[in-house]
């Protein structure tokens, strides 16, 4: 078995795969952020809290209503998305005319409030969520031991990301959405209910975060702080990919997951910083981001 920079290739393949799995989470989360920013011009700092709410929704569906993981996968995003709709209608919709900064402040404040309430209620150590029995176990790939659930994470994430990209970039509905961001008055004149479309778009972006939360529940603890830890990285991903670029968010999400995975092998101490170093370099060389226009 060969070696690359003193690391056996076997180990390296394993780490690449793991990077891809973590990248799946980055992709799902940054996708929601990109959709919301691209179509609403809102920098949604509540995204991490909404991801956490998705995981908690799964926990409650299981422990209070006895609904298993698969039900959660469908119901939790709807529930979390619905809270997003309420937030958009009651608060965000009043800010569209103002600078980005106001939306950012509001969503950031909301995130702190939501996290605080959950922490107060459930503590900071988190709650256990069992692995769904259909996905328990693991396969030996020769170079590594791949838990079935992690394989599922990659598949589900790819499905969700491709479907979202397809809807926004390749369908009539997506065309309306994009047109409404460019020129809402004109689209409204054609008889499209733009405010409702915007509300639903925000709800959808938030539902994506909720979906990622359910996906994360069996692997990580269901923890009020889980969103706060990941959201900063995800923002860096969105900035590197280019704010508002759907494909950019997806590709950068997976790409940076892999880069981070490799860092964990070669220099684990830098794991937390490597993404920000890349962000710095990208901003210096290509301020609009790798896939951004303008």
């Amino acid at each position: 078995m060969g070696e690359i920079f003193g690391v056996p290739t076997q180990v390296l393949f394993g780490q690449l795969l793991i990077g891809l799995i973590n990248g799946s989470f980055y992709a799902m989360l940054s996708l929601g952020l990109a959709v919301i920013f691209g179509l609403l011009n809102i920098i949604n700092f509540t995204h991490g809290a909404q991801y956490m709410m998705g995981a908690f929704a799964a926990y409650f569906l299981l422990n209070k209503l006895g609904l298993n993981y698969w039900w959660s996968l469908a119901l939790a995003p709807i529930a979390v998305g619905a809270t997003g709709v309420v937030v958009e209608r009651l608060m965000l919709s009043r800010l569209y005319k103002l600078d980005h900064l106001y939306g950012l402040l509001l969503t950031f404040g909301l995130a702190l409030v939501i996290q605080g309430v959950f922490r107060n209620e459930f503590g900071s150590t988190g709650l256990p969520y069992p692995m769904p029995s259909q996905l328990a176990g693991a396969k030996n790939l020769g170079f590594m031991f791949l838990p079935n659930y992690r394989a599922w994470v990659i598949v589900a994430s790819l499905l969700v990301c491709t479907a979202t990209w397809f809807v926004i970039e390749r369908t009539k509905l997506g065309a309306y959405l994009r047109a409404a961001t460019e020129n809402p008055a004109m689209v409204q004149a054609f008889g499209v209910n733009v405010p409702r479309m915007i509300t639903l778009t925000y709800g959808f972006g938030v539902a994506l975060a909720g979906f990622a939360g359910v996906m994360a529940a069996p692997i990580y603890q269901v923890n009020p702080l889980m969103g706060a830890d990941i959201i900063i990285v995800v923002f860096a991903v969105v900035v590197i990919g280019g704010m508002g670029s759907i494909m950019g968010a997806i590709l950068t999400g997976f790409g940076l997951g892999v880069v981070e995975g490799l860092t964990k092998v070669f220099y684990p101490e830098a794991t937390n910083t490597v993404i920000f170093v890349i962000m710095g370099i990208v901003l210096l060389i290509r301020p609009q981001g790798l896939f951004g226009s303008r």
Partner: protein
Amino acid sequence: MKFRRKLLSAAAILAIAGAAHAQISGNVVKIGVLNDQSGTYADLAGPGSTLAAKMAIEDSKAILKGLKVEVVSADHQNKPDVGSAIARKWYDSEGVDVIVDVPTSSVALAVNQITKEKGKAFLVSGAATSDLTGKACSPNTIHWTYDTWELANGTGSAIVKTGGKTWFFLTADYAFGHALERDTAAVVVKNGGKVVGSVRHPFPTADFSSFLLQAQASKAQIIGLANAGADTTNAIKQAAEFGIVKAGQNLAGMLVFLTDVHALGLNTAQGLIFTTSWYWDMNDASRAWAKRFAAANGGKYPTMVQAGVYSSVIHYLKAVKAINSDDGTKVIAEMKKLPTDDPLFGKGTVRADGRKLHPAYLVEVKKPSESKGPYDYYKIRATIPADQAFRPMADGGCPLVK
């Protein structure tokens, strides 16, 4: 004559005022509970530690006889700079006499230094690094509940003796993790084992899969988790996912708290062996106290850290009362002189280097079928007597006792 009398009375007044000044500063003993109130260590210390300090004051009423004692608390966010700023503000302008708890070793080491500069008192319950009674020891600090040497000695030697000879460490990349890895590695080597590698992960980390894969590739028999809180629970949970234990490697949680076991659930945590300084279900006194604590803490049972805060505050107030002063250096000296005795840790002593001595317990997490109720989690496998539980004073390198 008249003049002389005036002079005398003036001198007397001055003397009384002076004496009063030397007694209790501001006529109130102010206890500052400084810990993580919102992050990963908030459940094992956090508001529960503040509650424990308040309970200690309540239970000291009989000896206080009207002496006023207040508790304040603050969140250090596990950041040494934040913790230092709060400690300085408390000591300089808010009349705090003693800081207690302070989990997160990096923060505790910073507060340890500031407390020494200011001549105040510092009672550590939450932090683990054995350096607090080693090269960083101070005449103003007592390390109360547990330390890295105790954990390493208790868990490490028990595991090496039952055949776990080769070790790989997953280490939290800050003062605590480094100290725990160092102390455990020393125990492993001393007992004839070998350390085959280690990886330092950022604090905190959510995803351990990369690190676990490296641990797996090392082929070590034992994967030592030199971390705490959510890091430990995530690592244990994900190790199960990657089939590490099934494939024949074993995990050694070097620092596991009651709250961690609760968060993992017995299904995942069963069989785990580790060392603790205190467990609520040991005797009638500890059970009664734990029930009282849980009732005021939303049903959550106390960890050893919170029990340690209670015990240390009880002893602190005894010492303050004994010398009728809240001068930090003097109280700590008195605390070392007085034998300790409280309902939770029983009788014990404080050593000259600031190490509080009590037995340590090697425990095993129960199977779900063995647990009879909420928080009924541990079986005690062995008791390590107080004189063997902690590092011998001569080995610590504490400048105070040379």
